[in-house]
């Protein structure tokens, strides 16, 4: 029993290329290829592939919409995203769908593609090396940006200093030649970054963190 594969890609050349690539693979078989979402949905309602190779950018319905529909309606079809974008947004967006079990770039070679199909077919998950690295980097970045939350801008530092020096917003506006609204806007940002509600708490925290001089 060979693994039945369907391809959804608007480039006939690519669909053909994949088919050629898998021609000599004895245990898998490309049974259909669809140039857009409409024909894909019509086709799989008749013939179910085991594994669907899905592109993201297609005319009409995009890959994410299709992945959502297929996960909902055909829980038995496993999907591998085969696309040319390695943007982390697309990676995360596609992997959130239940049946999307793989993500590969279109410069993936034959052996990797075959491995991915087999693993996904048997219930596993497969991410290309570049994709896995991209996810890891992004997680690191996300973590770091959370920690960066306490950084103050130059202007915010000036205003924080003035607040600690007991100036009101109106006074600060006059000193810095800013509008009252702008000063309020900065205040809001500072309070939010230091996670405080009252001016007294703000002063205490700023001193604790050594952000200003008394």
């Amino acid at each position, binding site marked *: 029993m060979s693994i039945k594969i369907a391809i959804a890609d608007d480039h006939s*050349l690519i669909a053909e*290329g994949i088919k050629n*690539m898998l021609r000599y693979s004895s245990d898998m078989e490309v*049974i259909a290829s669809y140039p857009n979402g409409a024909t894909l949905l019509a086709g799989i309602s008749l013939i179910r592939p085991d594994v669907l190779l899905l592109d993201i950018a297609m005319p009409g319905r995009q890959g994410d919409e299709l992945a959502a529909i297929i996960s909902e309606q055909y829980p038995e079809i496993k999907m591998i995203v085969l696309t*040319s974008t390695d943007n982390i947004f697309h990676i995360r967006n596609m992997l959130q769908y239940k049946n999307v079990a793989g993500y590969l770039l*279109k410069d993936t070679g034959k052996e990797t593609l075959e491995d991915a199909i087999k693993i996904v077919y048997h219930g596993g998950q497969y991410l290309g090396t570049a994709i896995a690295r991209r996810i890891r980097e992004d997680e690191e970045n*996300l973590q770091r940006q959370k920690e960066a939350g306490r950084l103050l801008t130059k202007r915010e530092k000036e205003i924080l200093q003035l607040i600690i020096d007991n100036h009101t917003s109106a006074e600060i506006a006059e000193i810095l030649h800013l509008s009252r609204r*702008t000063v*309020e806007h900065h205040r809001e*940002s500072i309070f939010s970054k230091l996670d405080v509600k009252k001016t007294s708490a703000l002063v205490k925290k700023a001193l604790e963190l050594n952000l200003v001089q008394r």
Partner: protein
Amino acid sequence: MSGAVHLSFFSLRIRLFSRGVIYAIWSMIISGSPASAQQFHNLTMLPEHFFSIASEDTAYVHKLLGSAGYYLPLHSDSALFLYEQAKQLSFRIPYPDGICVALNGISRFYADRGDQTKALAYLREAEVYCKNAFFRARSLTVSWYQSMAIPHTYSGRNDSAVWYLYRSLEFARSLKDTASMLAAYNLLGTVWIHNKDLNNAIRYLEKGEQLALQKPYTDDLALISNNLAIAYGNLGDSTRMLHSLQRAATYARISGNKRQQQKALLNLADYYLKGQQPAEALRHLQEGLSFTKEENHTLRFEFYYGLSNAWHQLGHFRKARTYGLAAEACISGKQLHTFSKAYFFEEQARICDALGDRAGAYHYQKLYTALSDSLNRTSRKGEIDRLETMYRLAEHEKEIAHKEKELLFNAAKIRNRNIWIITISIGALGITAFLFGLYRNSRRRMLLLRQQKEIDELKAMISGEEKERNRIAIDLHDHVGGLLSAAFYNLERIKEENNDMEHSHAFRKIKSLIGEVQYEIRNTAHNLMPDILIHHSLPEAVRIYCADMERDAALRIDVQIQGQFDNLHQDFQLSLYRIIQELVQNILKHAEATHVYVQLHASSTLVSLTVEDNGKGFDPEQATTQGRGLLNIQGRITIMNGRLSLDTNPGKGTSIYIEFDLND
């Protein structure tokens, strides 16, 4: 010998009318000989985008359909059985392409049986499967339209038949599907012949001929030439008919299309019999008979009958009688009500008479009389049907002409009304402009207007720029990127076919080059078109952009985003993103910084953006490249109703603060 002339003349007409249409249509769609028909049955030959479902079930369906198509003109009952099998199997798989072709075939079985209601019912059922076919929806739809023409032609509704054929022609033309276009031209030709509108028939057939010659499709050319011959024959242009028949025979011989070759040879023989050239006729008949299969009784009857006729003309009555008996053996026990059969009996009566066989002569004369009476009745009815159809077509054309006139009249009325509307509008606009001018006639107002104009121009420029970026991004990503991927897969395939390729330095180099270009295109396209991201979340888009930049350049970018951005206008969000992009690029190019801080903050009344770096800074009073970069952003900020403030000095880094009001 005048009897023989009369006889062969009729036998030609017989093939032209009672069977001409049926044969032509069949041989085109069912028999599977010309290019279009081959495609129709041979479902494994699929156009690009599609692959065959290589499972055994569908292959079996194809086999069933292929045999059914072959048997339909010969043993229609077997064909029906095969079509039913194919239909049931296709429903079980399920396989709409198979269902479509099977239902078309069943319909044609009934059409041929004279049950046009049933034929149409099957086609109605087929419609949805053909139009939503799995692999070949477009070309099966073209075929479906052509099939629809058949029961309509049979039941004398030529106008409907022509309508369906025009639809199929239009459709095939839009698909640039030459094979289907050829089929449509041919069918139109046959329907016009059926309707005795020979000039129209010739016009369409010649169009088909031109098209078929380009390739050349010899198979279709054979069919077209045969049909042209019928049309010329009916026009009484025997020279052109002869040439067409000769061409048909040649084309059929080249393409190996037996059916068309038989048809051409039979009609050529008829022509020579009519022209008292029995020796020529004999040659063609013998050629035809030599490759006509034993089980094809109808055709063998025609050839034997022709041979009998030829020997009759040559005065060899005994030989004529022998072939006559052979012909009769072919049709014994078969329901074959044709003029050929009637005239065959009449001729046998004459031959028996010449041989002195009175009893035989009487026997055949009786058969002839009985058959020709009933046929004359049918033919009279056919003639009445034809006149009715012609009347209907004439009425239809009159109606179209009437409607066109009405449309012209309405258009004129609308034009008149539009002139009035335009006149009044221009008048009203003129008065408004005058009052407006009076009202605004001050220097200050003029200045404001000029500023507004500048802003509008900027807006238009930026929006045009966005569109252009979008177009380039799509071109790059979809088209160039797609081609590159295809090239990559083909390389993989080369590797598969030549094992030593993997060790070739050049091969590996090409592969890595393709990979690099793919990477560049991905990045460029994404930078040009971030709108999908922004559509989902601007903060996420900004964070990801900065992370990408950080990875590509040796630089640390911290991002801090506060507040809600979802409610901001899409264009506004995109502009914010572009400003961040330009500021970060500016820093990368000029600032020599190691650390960048990007902060976006949305409160209820304001949105602010701060971008700071620890680079070399610059003197804002001097025209530096870094300062000039900021000028590009200034235009955008103005139309977004924002203000920019800059805090920088040489050696002190740069801090840019941009603020937008959210009031309007």
